[in-house]
């Protein structure tokens, strides 16, 4: 087990999330992609903490906890916006919310 394996797993997870965010049309699927990318970042924090010189400082663990809290807030606001958009334009497709498009 080396740090490389964990970083490679995290990179693959990030690529999945990026592909979902860029290619899916449903706003909820875009949010799912963002959650996958945040999970990859958290995995990086924990992996670097596990392989750090001084794990007793717990920097990576604390950063991951704060990151999870921010991700929870982001998910709540994002899904509230999706519900509001659905109420206004009766659709959750990202392409349909194009009122401001020139």
């Amino acid at each position: 087990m080396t740090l490389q394996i964990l970083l490679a797993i995290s990179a693959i997870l990030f690529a999945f999330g990026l592909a979902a965010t860029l290619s899916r049309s449903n706003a909820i699927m875009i949010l799912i992609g963002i959650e996958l990318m945040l999970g990859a970042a958290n995995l990086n924090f924990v992996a670097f903490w596990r392989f750090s010189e001084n794990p007793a400082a717990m920097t990576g663990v604390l950063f991951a906890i704060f990151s999870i809290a921010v991700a929870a807030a982001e998910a709540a606001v994002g899904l509230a916006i999706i519900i509001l958009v659905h109420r206004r334009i009766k659709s959750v497709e990202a392409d349909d919310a194009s009122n401001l498009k020139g």
Partner: protein
Amino acid sequence: MTCEFLKACSADPMKFLGEWFVLLPALVLLMAAGAAVVMRNLIHAALCLTLSFIALGIVFIALGAEFVGFVQLLVYVGAVAMVIVFAILLTKPERLTKSVSAFSGLGPAGGAAVGFVVLAALLGFIFTSPLAKKPLPTPASAPVADIGQALMGDYVVALIAIGVLLTAALVGAAVIAMEDKP
């Protein structure tokens, strides 16, 4: 005997189950995440996402960050996944059965291409970096008591800031999603 085994496992899981204690849930994590990305049915995608969250929590626990693992399970599996399922059910239940174009923007090929390029760049950096070749150091652990001391000591400003952020975000989410008064 079982109790001793569990005690030893919690002290250093890798010694007993080897690398597979981390690699097996990581494999499940990647497969569930890949399935969540390509699923056409939103509910199926949300369930695959939940499975990937569970696997990620197990990876954290296996790496020795038990508290982060349990927080991951509680917050993501308990809250975020449920909120996503609620949002899917509140918006367009009829779309679940109807076959619609699931892709837009760059399309499946474009999204996969960008993801592949980014993945190749990341893997190139990861496998050429000298930092990443370090062997596994001595077992690390983050006891909950120490995390609590750190949060109430050095990181107390960040803790209060995250509390304010969460309160503001959740109140804001409730206000945004509230019905408009006629």
